[in-house]
């Protein structure tokens, strides 16, 4: 069960500008094209981020770091989501948490 906190989406609040993952309409093109073939990358990860499911995001940190940033998905995304930007953002988010540097 994914329990969503009242502060949904707060993950990105400070970086609203970059969160174009929310334009994602879940077509799955990216996941099909991704050479890594991980089920959650990148579409499902974005969903967790959008839903504010922080635990799920942490559970899937390996996938977030596994991304090659090759942009194969990005150039094919019909919604023009800047997928690798979002991945970077998620890495920053996870790293901040690891280093306990989040304000």
């Amino acid at each position, binding site marked *: *069960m994914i329990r*969503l906190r*009242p502060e*949904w989406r707060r993950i990105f609040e400070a970086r609203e500008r970059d969160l174009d993952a929310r334009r994602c309409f*879940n077509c799955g093109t990216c996941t099909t094209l991704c050479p890594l073939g991980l089920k959650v990358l990148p579409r499902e990860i974005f*969903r*967790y981020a959008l*839903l504010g499911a922080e635990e799920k995001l942490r559970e899937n940190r390996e996938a977030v770091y596994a991304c090659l940033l090759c942009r194969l998905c990005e150039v094919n995304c019909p919604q023009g989501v800047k997928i690798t930007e979002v991945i970077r953002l998620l890495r920053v988010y996870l790293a901040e948490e690891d280093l306990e540097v989040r304000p």
Partner: protein
Amino acid sequence: MKEPRLGVFICHCGGNISDVVDVEKVRQAVEGAPGVKVAQTHMFTCSEAAQQEMIRLIREHDLNGLVIASCSPRLHQETFRQMARRAGLNPYRYVQVNIREQCSWAHPHHPGEATRKAVALVKGGIARALRARSLEPIVIKTRPEAMVIGAGIAGLEAALGLSRMGIKVHLVEKEDRPGGLLRDRGPIFPTDQKGRELVEHLWREIHRDANIRTYFRSHLCGKEGVVGDFRLKICRDGEEKEIRAGAIVVATGARPHTPQPGEWGYGSEGVCTLYEFLLHLAEHPEEKPLFYRGRRVRRLVYVYCVGSREPAGEKARTYCSRYCCTAALYTACLVHSRWPEVTQVHLYRDIRSYGKYEKYYRRALGYGSVFVRYSPQSPPEIHPGGRLRVRVRDLLTAKQEIELEADLVCLVTGLEPVHSPELLEHLKLPVGKEGFFQEVHPKLRPVETMADGVFICGCAQGPRTAEESAASGLAAAAKVGALLLAGEVKREPLVAEVIEERCDGCGECVAACPYGALELSGDRVRVRESLCKGEGACVPVCPQEALQVRGYEHETIKALIDSLAEGLADA
């Protein structure tokens, strides 16, 4: 009677008929038969060339009867009647025999039998044509006056459209104000104009218009007469008033589905329908922060498809209500722009913001609306209480269960039919399986009904947007205009007639007619031709065989049966 001179034409229909039926054999079987002057085959009888040839032959041989053996009369009866008229032959002296649907298509593997059947049917057609009479359509004078029932956007547009054509309008509304579903509404898609203002705008025009009379708190309570000249009754506070009108437009709309208390958490605090929420927003457009009935709203969850697209079952609303995806997305955009701090989550099945309305979906995504797709097998559970909890299985993350808290759950409910028993009773309007009034054909005759002179439009026909409701209101007005401004309506003369010397005035038939077309006058029965639909319920009832339907006279039918029986005996 003049000596019969028939022309018989048999069609190949490309190969649709002739690949199975030996059309030449059929021709030979009837050539030279008593009364038959010309017998020919044609590749495509309906082609202009073939029609020209038949017209020439009709004139040249002074033919006084015509049999065409081809497709179903549904397809080409009118074509050939018009051809007969062009040739100077009364169209009712033309008989169509169907040897395509009834022979070649029905018996593709039995060409011999199909051919024999075709011969028998054509001989039957000849038997009818030998007895056919010249008839003229029944002409009814129309009055340039119409009744519009329902003053929602569809009815208002229809009334204005009619008035602009110079037709007098009686607008009948059961409530005490116009506007229907849009009456108390704030901004609506796609124009962002307030529903309330749109209604006021139309109402001002109607109010100024001397051609339109409006009757509030009124409903239809009687209908007599015929298309072109109905005598209608409306009731208001127990008082009746008679109104005469040539046609009727039914624009009685639909109503938003309201769940039973407990269903989808409805009835508990913090759960409302989209319609209720929108009425609230219209009343409190600028309120900051957002409240709904005393609840501060930070987290707003929409549940789509409530009361629509239900799994099959008795009384299930299996249809998609069409307006609601777009209306919910539009509402979300409105909330995002006025109250950006509110988080909005959409629990949906499919997003059907079709056509131009796709932009509201994209816009809502852009604003940060979150979409969670649920399956009808595991609909969202809504747990009321001080903190509303919603549980849903998200199809987009492989059906993982998500639990979220909400301040307001907005049920995006569909539209359902309004029940107007008086319209069913007096107008005999056909109702489709969803419970909405049904048009004759969704594309070819989209606002006409099986009831002559009665048109439908707007949500009374089925769920749709205001834009579509208005367009169909204007379409209905155009149809009424075409009907009434012509000054007269022509009807098929194939109606019942009384064989005077046989009728003894027993009156048995009067009750048999479902259209009230028969009346006793003196010691005879009389047919009110404009009411008769020619369906013949009266014919078998008469003990004297004094009633018959034109074109299907006793003698004609007997001759037809004899001829068919003979044809089968030969085979």
